[in-house]
């Protein structure tokens, strides 16, 4: 079987694994029950940024053959865990349905969406991906095929909750049953508003988010002085009727190979952010956008992560409670003043979190910054950022992580032990392993 060097979207810490394409649930059972010493892990499309979908020296299961999508008349979708979100969106469209949660890229699998309990621009309204799952088919390392969901009870319910956000470490998800969202149209009516300060951006979102299904702010994390954190807030909801917003169409521009030196540096980042801010309208109401324009703008630029060069990119995404919203400004100052240029910085309000112990979202604010791996002193800059996040009672997102320490993780996720209990029960021999689980001693 082919040995492949795998990395996450950030391309920071590659390792090699034996990638095995599975064609059926039986194949998954066989792979798990005949696992070698270095274990087994499911991988989706590798859109997590760090080491979550790697298993050095072990087996990595490619579930892309498990991609069937069945849309039921009741608006419930039954799909293979390897199904790609973009295809699910296409399959739902003729039924007047849309995915209940979509991350910033449509190139993720349902398995990956469950394992990271992904969130979208509607988290403040609709919660995260796991909140819309009706049932999962999960294979545990003993080869047992389990069907678990939010209406399970006892150990099964605990297992379901540990699997949502569980980063593939509590079983291989083979099927996802999901409640889709009825929408009047795929297109989104978007209000855009350019605001000159972080305070204004946060104030706008706090006071008006409730009126919109979707809301997010792009912010300028490089602007000098008090302009730091100025931004463009986009808020919207599905239009009553409009053009089809299909995802389709292959990437227009792709970077086929890694440029030897990162194109992303302090100067290009500053120029880009300045231009992006200026090009936004001061205010524009009810603009009709397609799904791709609104939800997945980056999918139009293939392999843009390669522009960061051989040192790759590190995304830092944190969530902090509302009461500590001031830490957002401190983080932005810290990044700017320590010379860490964020190309793309996104701010959003989260609604309440759910009952899944490792699920990332929690009520408050989330900030994501994309930093070049080559930034001098980046390790220490981000260690300090983690301290600020921890002092604020916040956490960082495992789907983006390749750097946090086991101790920090424990402090960020107070329900870690509850999750570990389930892991101990379903995988006492640690058959399910990833580079992330090794790094974090999970």
């Amino acid at each position, binding site marked *: 079987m082919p*040995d492949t*060097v795998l990395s996450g979207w950030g391309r920071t810490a590659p390792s090699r694994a034996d990638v095995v394409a599975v064609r059926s649930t039986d194949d998954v059972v066989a792979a798990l029950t005949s696992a070698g010493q270095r274990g087994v892990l499911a991988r989706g499309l590798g859109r997590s940024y760090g080491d979550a979908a790697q298993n*050095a020296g*072990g087996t990595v299961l490619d579930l892309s053959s498990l991609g069937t999508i069945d849309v039921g008349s009741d608006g419930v979708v039954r799909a293979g865990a390897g199904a790609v979100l973009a295809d699910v969106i296409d399959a739902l469209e003729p039924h007047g349905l849309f995915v209940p949660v979509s991350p910033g890229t449509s190139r993720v699998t349902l398995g990956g969406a469950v394992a990271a309990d992904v969130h979208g621009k509607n988290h403040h309204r609709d919660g995260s991906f796991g909140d819309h799952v009706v049932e999962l088919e999960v294979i545990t390392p003993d080869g047992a095929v389990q069907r678990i969901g939010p209406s399970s009870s006892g150990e099964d319910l605990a297992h379901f909750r540990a699997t949502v956000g569980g980063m593939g470490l509590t079983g291989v998800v083979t099927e996802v049953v999901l409640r889709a969202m009825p929408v009047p149209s795929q297109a989104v009516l978007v209000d855009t508003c350019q605001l000159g300060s972080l305070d204004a951006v946060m104030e706008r979102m706090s006071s008006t988010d409730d009126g919109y299904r979707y809301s997010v702010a792009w912010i300028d994390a490089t602007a000098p002085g008090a302009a730091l954190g100025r931004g463009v807030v986009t808020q919207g909801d599905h239009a009553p009727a409009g053009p089809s917003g299909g995802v389709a169409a292959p990437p227009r521009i792709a970077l086929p190979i890694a440029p030897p030196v990162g194109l992303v540096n302090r100067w290009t980042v500053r120029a880009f952010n300045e231009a992006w801010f200026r090009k936004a309208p001061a205010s524009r109401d009810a603009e009709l956008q397609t799904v791709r324009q609104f939800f997945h703008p980056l999918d139009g630029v293939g392999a843009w992560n390669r522009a960061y060069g051989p040192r790759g990119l*590190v995304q830092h995404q944190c969530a902090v409670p509302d009461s500590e919203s001031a830490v957002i400004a401190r983080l932005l100052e810290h990044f700017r003043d320590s010379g860490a240029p964020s190309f793309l910085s996104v701010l959003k309000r989260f609604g309440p979190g759910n009952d899944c112990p490792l699920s990332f979202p929690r009520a408050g604010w989330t900030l994501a910054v994309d930093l070049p791996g080559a930034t001098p002193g980046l390790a220490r800059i981000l260690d300090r950022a983690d301290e600020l996040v921890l002092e604020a009672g916040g956490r960082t997102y495992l789907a983006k992580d390749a*750097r946090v320490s086991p101790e920090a993780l424990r402090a960020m996720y107070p329900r870690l032990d509850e999750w570990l209990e389930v892991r101990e029960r379903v995988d006492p021999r640690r058959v399910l392993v990833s580079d992330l689980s090794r790094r974090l001693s999970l």
Partner: protein
Amino acid sequence: MIDAHGRPQSVLVLGGGSEIGLAALRVFGPTTLRRIVLAGRPGASLDSAVQSLTSQGFSGVVAADLDVADVPTHEAFVDAAFDAGDIDVVLLVAGVLGDQAEFEADPDAAVAAAQVNYVGSMSLALHVARRLTQQAHGVIVVVSSVAGERARRSNFVYGSTKAAIDSVGLGLVEVLRGTGARALVVRPGFVRTRMTSHLPEAPLAVDPDEVGRAIVDGIAGGKELVYAPPLMRPVMSVLRHLPRPVFRRLGI
């Protein structure tokens, strides 16, 4: 595991008392490190290395018995180290400088130096590469020397051993490509350590910390070959190409 910034959690130092090895650990810092195995001949130098790291706040520091010259013990040693847990970074820093005049007077002494600097080091490096290949991640750092780049009248025995281990290191760079693991060859110039303390300082001399920094940055940057100081690269490039009569007149 090595994190997104190139920081390891576990390090095996072959030549555990080495000042250059200790400097590299200092530059990594204790933040991510949780297992450090200092392998060497039992004695004061190893003990004080363990103590100095522990007092600097490093945790999980242990000493392990290893004689680099004793090749038959290597397989079991390396296997035991890796069986106890993944190793992210292996620093191959054992070495002896010796004395050129003594080597010429007593060829057995020259062979003994080669047994440490080349034969034993190669044996360890090959065993480590085998385990890194299985592990499918991690880095072996082979510290050779600019002395190996062009043999000099004044220390060609040492130079020849360093040339040999340098070739092994560059060979492992190729062996490990595509395995998920990798190798880094480091060529220091004159470094102010106890190995050289009895010698007059050569031009471009550096402190061990600078070599430690070169190792750490080389790992983080995914480098295959680095010099310390970096200026040594062009200097050696010139020296390597000097005609013999000219090189001879330099009197080095």
